[in-house]
């Protein structure tokens, strides 16, 4: 993205808005990168000889006689093994004090995988967290976000998942991440000895918001290189996609587009899908799995960002604080992994689905009992047992500090069933009952 010799330099800008500027230029290609007064910019509209540029760092201080040069190429990133262990900004320049990397130059935001060339995901990602492995099993090639309120420890949970998931390469994309969280990730990965498999592209709150728009494509182009050229299992972490969408709405607003729901651009669904659909299981072993964060405002999932995200991703994970056990748990009701059917009972024990469903149903009964209790009604014996079960289930399986294997999770489930309920009440297929029932 550097200027070359003998390039035409334009010095007359006609229009300047907060995020864009317009000038007369010829031979310019759509999506091409340019520099306006040395600042990176991208062509977003061409009408005859009038070209509109989106200036990533903002247009403050740009004047009508600032120099504009076009690079003749769309945005690119350098990919290669040299990326590992390094932290970059949204343009791919190092921010860790190290030297520029050498590598193959690739266009970002490249073409999609032909759907018939994809392979059906079938490899389980074990995290040790039962709220995920037991109830919402993750699979390679999946895309799934955490829907979390700003005060919930989503970055910590995501980091735990990343470290336990045994991915070959972890690509972290920070969008509007606070400097503290950026340092948290950096220190955690260093102290866990995982630095050599981490690549990070960071846009922190200190950087201009529009730059964020480049981060997911940077991450995913790098991830694609590792997954196709080296057949690696790549895990991409994106935090936070709501702030990415905010940047989209800023740009569309400056472009005078008619906003749709929640002031978001009408193309929000396609914009988000283009990112999330990069998650893929390639037939020759490489894969890209995306775990993202979508922060909610006051838990509202009908807002355009979580809503569109939910329609794109393969499930979502919710965190909730369970006051009965004073711990954060993975909410079993609202969380969902759509790809779990591909592995549960196939890559795990045959009783997995039955235990999962029965436990959640009984936990729901406990929730009803709780409502009754709160409304001052008397509890039946069943209600009281359900409440007891819920507390143990929450502590032993749902809490995010759990770290056990899937078999142990299933055994724990049967133990709890036997402790609190009769066979009828658990209501699992007879064949499984005979084999695994631990009660009387």
């Amino acid at each position, binding site marked *: 993205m550097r200027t070359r010799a003998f390039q035409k330099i334009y010095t007359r800008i006609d229009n300047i808005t907060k995020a864009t500027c317009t000038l007369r230029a010829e*031979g*310019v*290609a*759509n999506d091409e990168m340019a520099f306006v007064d040395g600042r990176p910019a991208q062509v977003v*509209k*061409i*009408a*005859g*000889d009038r070209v509109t540029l989106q200036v990533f760092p903002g247009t403050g201080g740009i004047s009508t006689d600032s120099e504009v040069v076009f690079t003749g190429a*769309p945005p690119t990133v350098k990919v290669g093994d040299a990326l590992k262990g390094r932290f970059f900004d949204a343009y791919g320049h190092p921010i860790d004090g190290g030297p520029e990397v050498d590598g193959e130059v690739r266009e970002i*935001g*490249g073409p*999609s*995988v*032909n*759907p018939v060339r*994809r392979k*059906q*995901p079938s490899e389980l990602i074990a995290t040790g967290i039962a709220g995920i492995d037991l109830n919402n099993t993750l699979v390679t*090639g999946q895309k799934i976000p955490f829907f979390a309120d700003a005060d919930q420890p989503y970055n910590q949970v995501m980091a735990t998942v990343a470290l336990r998931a045994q991915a070959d390469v972890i690509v972290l994309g920070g969008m509007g991440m606070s400097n503290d969280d950026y340092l948290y990730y950096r220190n955690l990965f260093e102290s866990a000895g995982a630095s050599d498999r981490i690549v990070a592209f960071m846009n922190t709150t200190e950087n201009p918001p529009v730059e964020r728009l480049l981060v997911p494509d940077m991450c995913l182009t790098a991830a694609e290189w590792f997954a*196709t050229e080296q057949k690696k299992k790549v895990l991409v972490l994106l935090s936070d996609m709501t702030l990415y969408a905010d940047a989209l709405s800023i740009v569309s607003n400056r472009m005078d587009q*008619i*906003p749709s*729901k929640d002031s978001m651009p*009408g*193309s929000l*669904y*396609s914009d988000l*899908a*283009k990112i999330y*659909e990069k998650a*893929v299981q*390639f*037939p020759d072993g490489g894969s890209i799995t995306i775990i993202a964060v979508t922060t909610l405002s006051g838990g509202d*999932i*009908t*807002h*355009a960002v979580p*809503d569109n995200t*939910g*329609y*794109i991703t*393969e*499930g*979502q994970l919710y965190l909730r604080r369970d006051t009965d056990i004073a711990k954060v748990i993975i909410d079993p*009701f*609202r969380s*969902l992994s759509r790809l779990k*059917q591909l592995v549960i009972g196939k890559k795990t024990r045959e009783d997995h689905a039955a235990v999962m*469903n029965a436990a*959640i*149903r009984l936990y729901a009964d406990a929730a009803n009992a709780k409502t009754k209790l709160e409304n001052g*009604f*008397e509890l*039946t014996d*069943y209600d009281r047992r359900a409440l007891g079960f819920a507390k143990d289930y929450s502590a032993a399986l749902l809490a995010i500090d759990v770290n056990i294997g899937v078999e142990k999770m299933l055994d724990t489930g049967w133990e709890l069933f036997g402790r609190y309920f009769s066979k009828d*009440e658990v*209501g699992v*297929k*007879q064949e499984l009952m005979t084999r695994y029932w631990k009660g009387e």
Partner: protein
Amino acid sequence: MATTGKVTGIVSNLVTVEVDGPVGQNEICYISLGEDRLMAEVIKVTGKLASVQVFESTRGLSVGCPVEFAGHMLEVTLGPGMLSRNYDGLQNDLDAMTGVFLKRGEYTPALDPDRKWHFVPLAKVGDKVRCADWLGSVKEGWIDHKIMVPFDYEGEGTIEKIAAEGDYPASGEIAVLRDAQGNSRSVSMTMKWAVKREIRGYRSKPRPFKVMETGVRTIDTLNPIAEGGTGFIPGPFGCGKTVLQHALAKNAGADLIVMVACGERANEVVEIFTEFPELDDPRTGRKLMERTIIVCNTSNMPVASREASVYTGMTLAEYYRMMGLKVLLLADSTSRWAQALREMSNRMEELPGPDAFPMDLSAVVSQFYSRAGYVELRNGASGSITFIGTVSPAGGNLKEPVTESTQKAARCFYALSQARADSKRYPAVDPIDSYSKYLEYPEVIRWFDENVEPGWVDKVLKMKDLLLRGKEAKDQINILGDDGVPVEYHVAANKAEVVDFVVLQQDAFDEVDASCPMGRQRYMVDLVLEICDAEYRFDGFEEVGGWFRKLINLMRQMNYQLFDSDKFKAAEADLRSLVAERRAV
């Protein structure tokens, strides 16, 4: 000479072209960018400027790129060899493309023109024919694929020449027709058709009168869809829209399934690619893939071809309908198509309607749904397209333009409920909000009387009442408390649970329960009604829930067993003795 032009402006995939000759609305053109030719469709003409939506990424396009106009609208190639194919929204054969990634400007033929088919003539020299009349037949997999007079053939013609039985290539001449003016036209096994025009040429389109069996109890029993009918499934994400659609694709009693994956997840399509070639079609004993055509434009594929994909799917379905086949067309999700319309309308700076959707959304949706239907052909055969689309309402709120527009057009409404999904009651079709207008059709009621059981629809309505009464009782219990209401309320609430657990809920992932034939549905409905009609003795509300839970458990065991098997009968025997314990005489 064909019209040409040059690019003068670009905003995302909306490109303006200055043209040097006549240009038509919806005409197809190709923009040259280096070696690539990018396909685009005219959506607006202002003087010498045509606005075109490009079906590909416009990255790298610049002012001055040459454009050639094709002289026709977006069209598909129809002929033998489409079955089991995986097409993109523009009918490119995805399997024929090279490489793992989609290449811009790579267009692959929909059919193999050189493949030979065994043709058996159905008409003879001298026969008078009109458009869509059957000339002959070839075996495409297990179906008799009819070779028809081209749909654009005007008036009546006479067969001047027709091939004798034998093997011919798809693109070779199969017949020659002479019209009233004496002009001869050569006909092959393939033809082109513009996707936005309905294929007519049938005799009549009567009201649907039979039911399309889907194997899904909550549809077949509670809110059946007619063969040739229309329905839609709105629901928030995570409520099982896609699982339900896949269940329909697997089990529905149709000859042919056209599945349009419109702007949805690629992995869902991969699931079909992976599973359908392995799964057996219970009707033919062949693989499910052999009766399926997939039109796939996933959410990361170019937005403009999303709109094309639903029309392509409909046109393929119409083509097979003209052969006298029962076609089921599924589109997931029509909201993505509406959003594609919104994106373009927005870039063209049109005045927006509600939620920034184009003003004519409702008209576009209705016009599309109206292309489904049951038709009688001129030769006495009949064919049908049953269409079920999903809608993804923003925020799960059904008061939004796409849902409202669709509600005006579709006759069955399968509302997926978040509350049911949260309590894992799948399929999460809300039994009270959902409806099927076909239950009111006298001809459908008669069909049920004759083909399922006399008085069937009354039984269905009775079950709906049980559900409604149960819901009311439950609300009362929640307000007044368990001991604040008479025991009868608890019984009513639990009877509704019996209907819910035994009839409504169905395990799409269980081998046996996944598909429930009509005969079995009738048996279980009769059993459920027999149980719910009876009175039971309870000494207090504490006894009610536990007893019904046992009862439900036994009936669910029945659902999981092969119909009429020993285990099925054993569970039923247990059930009957349980019922006898408390039954009031």
